[in-house]
């Protein structure tokens, strides 16, 4: 098995303590940083699919994301300043009035692992803060809104409305969270919906393609 295949396998299985050294070995073997990065992105896509189908659970996904992040640290000096981003910037946050963060964090990790640069605004984020963040950051191509409480669905709707009426463009809006359905997403004017972190990565790639 080539070192690049080893890297892929280590990310998939979440071997956080081994991946950095193996990425270095893959570089030493003559693989380009870009190829190694894409092998890791492919691994995370597999992880996302397995999570969506219930084959793996949150801990396995978290350690895979952590493994990838350790590998990216080794690659960074070799990536000519491009970082991991090839899909643009994603602004993500839990909408105002809601303090839940695990779903949002998982989606952020999956999107980052799939090639987005992540601007994580955290929890309880006002509609205006999302708009400001698009203005303040370069190449924002995706805005991801999370909400777990039925009581914060009106705020999610208000946030989508403000984003769409902001006069800013070049980005799509994806929404998710326990009470969010595909129907609700369409009703409030979002461009995409995903029921879990693995599907969010698939939908995000589709939206910015």
């Amino acid at each position: 098995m080539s070192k690049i295949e080893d890297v892929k396998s280590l990310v998939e299985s979440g071997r956080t303590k081994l991946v950095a050294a193996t990425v270095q070995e893959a570089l030493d073997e003559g693989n380009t940083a870009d190829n190694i990065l894409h092998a890791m992105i492919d691994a995370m896509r597999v992880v996302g699919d397995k999570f969506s189908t219930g084959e793996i659970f949150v801990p396995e996904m978290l350690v895979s994301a952590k493994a990838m992040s350790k590998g990216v640290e080794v690659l960074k000096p070799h990536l000519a300043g491009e970082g991991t981003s090839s899909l643009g910037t994603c602004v993500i946050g839990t909408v105002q009035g809601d303090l839940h963060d695990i779903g949002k964090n998982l989606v952020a990790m999956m999107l980052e692992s799939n090639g987005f640069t992540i601007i994580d605004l955290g929890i309880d984020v006002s509609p205006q803060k999302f708009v400001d963040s698009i203005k303040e950051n370069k190449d924002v191509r995706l805005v991801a809104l999370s909400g777990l409480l039925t009581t914060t669905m009106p705020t999610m709707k208000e946030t989508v409305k403000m984003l769409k009426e902001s006069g800013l463009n070049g980005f799509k809006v994806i929404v998710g969270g326990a009470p969010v359905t595909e129907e609700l997403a369409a009703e409030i004017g979002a461009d995409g919906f995903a029921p879990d972190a693995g599907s969010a990565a698939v939908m995000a790639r589709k939206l910015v393609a």
Partner: protein
Amino acid sequence: MLTKKENLMETIKGGNPDRFVNQYEFMDIIMEVPIDPFCEPGKEMKTSWGVTFRWPEGQLGQFPVHDEEHKVLKDITEWKKYVKVPVIKTADEDWAAAVAHAKAIDRKEQFVTVFYNPGIFEMTHHLMGIDDALIAYSEEPEAMHELIDCLTEFELAFAKEIVNRVHPEAIFHHDDWGTQRSSFMSPAMFDEFILPAYEQIYGYYKDHGVELIVHHCDSYAANLVPSMIKMGIDIWQGVMTTNNTPELIKKYGKQITFMGDIDSGVVDFPGWNKEIIAREVERACRNCGKLYFIPCLTQGLNLSSFPGVYEAVSEAIDKINKEGLR
């Protein structure tokens, strides 16, 4: 007509209940044992373990705070350095209110029930944040086993005080193990870490006069039901509709009873109304039947987030008990 207690026993043993058990009616819940209190709305508090909770204005509950300043356990491999086990209160005055409450309960009608929170899994993520905790279960299993042993030892010592002083017939114990759609961890990981802790804790209660273990977990956890049975849970409270409750009753009803199937998120919101509640109660009762099932909000106590909802659900169940299903 059976008493509330008799009707409950007929329900969970697959006998002849004469009506649906109505939500929490069979338990008189003692909240006064000296565990950490809940944070009050709009305030912040620190638990005896050093965990900071906030309940921001307008929110539906309290949240643990896990920024770098407030996170208690910053490195699982050094948990002994960070985790300070609190001293259990053993003065008579600390337990007086709970003891008095227990004495005032009509044991023929209701189970003398002690409330305990948080559970073992919740304690692990309260101490370090859920992302760190779930990674630690995967990456540092030895340290996690040690931490869980420590938490279990504390809970067993507390359980000893509870049984010696309050003599409860039931325990109502919280520990959420999943999200709406999935358990946080795989059944295999759950069986490695969480099951052994609860086999000890619930086993201790059962060995010391407790008849009923009622466990609250308002999430998807259908994949954990075999483990719940092994650890001695009699009633899983908080079962959400995403678990397919009728299917669970069919598969496991003789070993465990399911309490819930009326998702709080669907009926307990600012614009609630009695029509939605009647529809959801009717659906739950019709689909699940009287045996091995207790219609109830998935909320983890006999109350609701918005005034009137809990009572309206009880009224709707009463109506079905009097008039039958339509």
